[in-house]
């Protein structure tokens, strides 16, 4: 008995020590002296907080791993894109090598003709010198080039980095696992923005363009140290923490050029050149800690806290200034998970978050946002039933902003229920309600208003009930009814005239009927009514209704061919309500003003001449009738669509694979009595991907 008591006491002491340390760490995280964000924040240089610890698994011997190559090409009526990637990651007992590269080119051919090219090349070598010591070297080169099709402006970016890193994992002492990483990265960043604008020529002078060329070159060394700690100090208690600190002092050279060039011939004029050299230090610190308590069966508690103080200095191409951004963040999170018995559970979260962002070149983006958030979820699951209920409330307070200061309150509740009634009959229900309330800071003015004129609430709700009956495992029918409503409410009289509530009612049903192994029939029915009600302008209230039936019949004639037939019927009308009688009495009757009826018939045949290649031809006809019920006018249009092409999904020699499709689409209109509606359009659509391991 004495031994048991002694063991319990020792366990309690361990727990108390662990708890004290955890609290100390959390306290440190909460009151960490801010990294010297100082007068001048940091580097154009991006710091990398989450550089992965090199795991032992990186040295699993895989010396004969192949080089993998992949390329893809896509083309449609507005865009074409080509992407290539290459990867090679062999590893040996104490050595791991990783090389990867990716390039992509995109052209926005029909819209504005813009073009962008991106490339990224990365290499890394890890060498396990001793069982607990790993030395690493990595290099990265990335580029981005974007030009507007009209050549109004072009932007280029280059990022180069070379990193040397050492990692030491201390031998576990009383289950404490500690890993420390130190690194030095040499960085070179280059940005260029070129803009040209045509100038109106004076009489007798040649056409010319104004040229604006802004560039920056940043060079620096980023020294960083990071550590992670994991300590299961007692059974069911785990203390974890991580810390990161870095320092850099990059030199940024900014060059701004303004000039004029003739469109043809030589010459040109320099209007101004401005060259500046800036050196600003940047320090970053991030510390976080967490305590996980998993002592009581079915219950888990997690308490974590994080504090970040980071700086960035970079050349802002938009502002043409050296930007100094400081970011101060704090997050505290408590999570409780309780599963008293299988199938029933509760999760609760409470989060406090504070984010302060301060810019020098763009002070309009300064913001201090403090958020308090709580959420809870109950779930229930059994062989016949499944249900969950989720509730989320949050309050975000925005301060120090140029506009939009104030509180945003959000409440969300969602639920989902599913119950098997008997046999193969299931009932399903979904529900949600949301309120977003924007309460801006009120600045007293000459009016008698007591709140901000911008105050606004947005409420929405959704409910759905349905049933599914599976006649056989492959044959089923589904019926569903849903209502969704949203209400947009501006509070002030200057803005409330547009307040509107939109309600959508929908009934849908589906039938899935496979008649035999080759022949299947599907049918879908959907009826929708959309009601729009203005709070203060009832003359504009409106209603629209539509009804749709879609039928599909598919038959696999032979193992190498299929045929499919689709039919769609669509009816739509919309209209207004009659006004109330003088004095506000009487009923408001609905009178449709326009209606549309549409039928579409699609037929397609597919043949697979060889494994992995399918040839498909599709023909469709759509007939649309529009009626104006007020004037009695009617118009009818027909549209023919023909599509043919091939789909491919096949493997070739030695693991090479080709996946994609090529398709020609042709469309033309007929029977039109609407001026300008006749016409045709033809497009090629291509999407192809090739991959191969060498």
């Amino acid at each position, binding site marked *: 008995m004495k031994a048991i008591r002694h063991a319990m006491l020792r366990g309690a002491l361990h727990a108390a020590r662990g708890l004290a340390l955890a609290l100390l760490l959390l306290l440190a995280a909460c009151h960490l002296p801010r990294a010297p964000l100082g007068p001048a924040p940091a580097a154009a240089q991006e710091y990398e907080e989450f550089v992965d610890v090199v795991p032992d698994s990186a040295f699993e011997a895989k010396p004969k791993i192949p080089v993998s190559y992949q390329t893809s090409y896509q083309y449609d009526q507005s865009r074409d894109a080509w992407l290539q990637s290459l990867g090679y990651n062999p590893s040996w007992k104490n050595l791991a090598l990783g090389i990867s590269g990716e390039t992509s080119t995109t052209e926005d051919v029909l819209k*504005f003709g813009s073009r962008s090219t991106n490339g990224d090349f990365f290499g890394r070598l890890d060498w396990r010198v001793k069982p607990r010591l790993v030395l690493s070297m990595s290099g990265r080169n990335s580029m981005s080039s974007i030009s507007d099709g009209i050549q109004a402006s072009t*932007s280029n970016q280059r990022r180069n980095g070379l990193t040397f890193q050492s990692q030491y994992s201390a031998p576990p002492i009383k289950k404490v696992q500690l890993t420390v990483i130190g690194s030095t990265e040499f960085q070179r960043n280059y940005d260029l*923005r070129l803009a040209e604008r045509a100038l109106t020529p004076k009489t007798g002078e040649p056409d010319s363009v104004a040229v604006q060329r802004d560039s920056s070159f940043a060079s620096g060394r980023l020294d960083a140290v990071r550590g992670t700690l994991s300590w299961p100090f007692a059974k069911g208690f785990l203390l974890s923490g991580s810390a990161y600190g870095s320092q850099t002092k990059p030199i940024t050279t900014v060059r701004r050029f303004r000039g004029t060039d003739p469109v043809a011939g030589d010459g040109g004029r320099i209007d101004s050149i401005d060259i500046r050299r800036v050196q600003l230090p940047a320090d970053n610190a991030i510390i976080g800690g967490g305590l996980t308590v998993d002592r009581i069966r079915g219950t888990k508690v997690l308490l974590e806290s994080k504090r970040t103080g980071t700086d960035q200095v970079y050349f802002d*191409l938009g502002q043409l200034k050296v930007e100094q951004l400081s970011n101060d963040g704090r997050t505290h999170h408590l999570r409780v998970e309780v599963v008293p018995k299988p199938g029933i559970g509760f999760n609760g979260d409470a989060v406090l978050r504070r984010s302060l962002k301060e810019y020098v070149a763009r002070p*309009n983006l300064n913001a201090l946002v403090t958020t308090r958030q709580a959420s809870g979820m109950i779930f229930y699951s059994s062989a016949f039933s499944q249900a969950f*209920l989720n509730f989320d409330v949050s309050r975000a307070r925005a301060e120090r902003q140029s506009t*939009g200061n104030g509180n945003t309150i959000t409440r969300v509740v969602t639920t989902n229920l599913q119950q098997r009634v008997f046999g193969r009959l299931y009932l399903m229900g979904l529900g949600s309600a949301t309120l977003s309330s924007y309460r801006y800071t009120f600045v007293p003015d000459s009016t008698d208003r007591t709140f901000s004129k911008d105050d606004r609430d947005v409420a929405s709700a959704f409910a759905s009930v349905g049933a599914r009956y599976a006649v056989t495992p492959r044959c089923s029918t589904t019926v569903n009814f849903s209502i969704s409503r949203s209400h947009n409410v501006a509070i002030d009289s200057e803005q409330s005239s547009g307040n509107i509530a939109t309600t959508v009612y929908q009934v849908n049903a589906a039938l899935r009927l496979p008649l035999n192994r080759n022949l299947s029939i599907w049918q879908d029915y959907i009826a*929708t009514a*959309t009601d729009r009600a203005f709070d203060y302008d009832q003359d504009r209230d409106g209603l629209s209704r539509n009804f749709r039936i879609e039928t599909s019949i598919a038959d696999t004639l032979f193992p190498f061919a299929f045929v499919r037939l689709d039919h769609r019927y669509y009816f739509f009308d919309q209209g207004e309500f009659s006004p109330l009688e003088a004095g506000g009495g009487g009923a408001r009757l609905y009178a449709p003003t326009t209606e549309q009826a549409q039928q579409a018939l699609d037929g397609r045949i597919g043949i697979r001449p060889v494994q992995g290649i399918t040839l498909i031809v599709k023909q469709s006809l759509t007939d649309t009738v529009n009626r104006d019920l007020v004037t009695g006018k009617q118009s009818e249009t027909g549209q023919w669509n023909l599509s043919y092409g091939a789909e491919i999904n096949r493997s070739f020699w030695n693991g090479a694979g080709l996946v994609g499709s090529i398709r020609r689409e042709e469309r033309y209109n007929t029977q039109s009595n609407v001026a300008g509606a006749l016409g045709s359009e033809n497009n090629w659509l291509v999407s192809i991907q090739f991959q191969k391991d060498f």
Partner: protein
Amino acid sequence: MAVFAFVLAGGVSCDLFETRTPNDPGANTFPCASLDAAENVYTNIKLAYGRGDGLACYVSSLADNIVFDFDDNDSLTAPAGQFLNWTKAIEQRVAQNVASGADEFYLQLRDSVIVLSQSDVETRRYAYEIQFKGSGIPDTLFQGLAEITVRKNAGGQWLVGEWVDRPDPAGTTSRTWGYLRQAYRIGF
């Protein structure tokens, strides 16, 4: 099951999701065109953007899954994350900030070109110019080309589905609408 239904019903009935009571606008009525024609959507953008009383009208003209395609150069030159995940909800808050941050706002959409016109989709390209004066930013002129695609949804409404924004080579500034927008995405 009963517990779930009870909690849900309780939450809704306790007015947790109730909006505040707005003030009657009286005679102040913003002329928002109905969305039964593609033309009206462009008109709403032109008239409603940049106005506090037009915000509901502007936002009602956007599809829930609207996609914004800002100029790559703008994305490259803006602080990291300024254009990230630009959804309808973000656009609404930004439009609100632009409206409340503007002391003077004048938007002109001109040189309309119909790029695509079908029964349920239409794309127009406009050269735009925004004259702006606000306390948040020093810039006062924004120019560019906006290619706006509107689509007819199942309810018969025409809504903006895609919005492409590029600089105008014929303009006098490369500051675009997207540049103005990102300048007012603050704190979210």
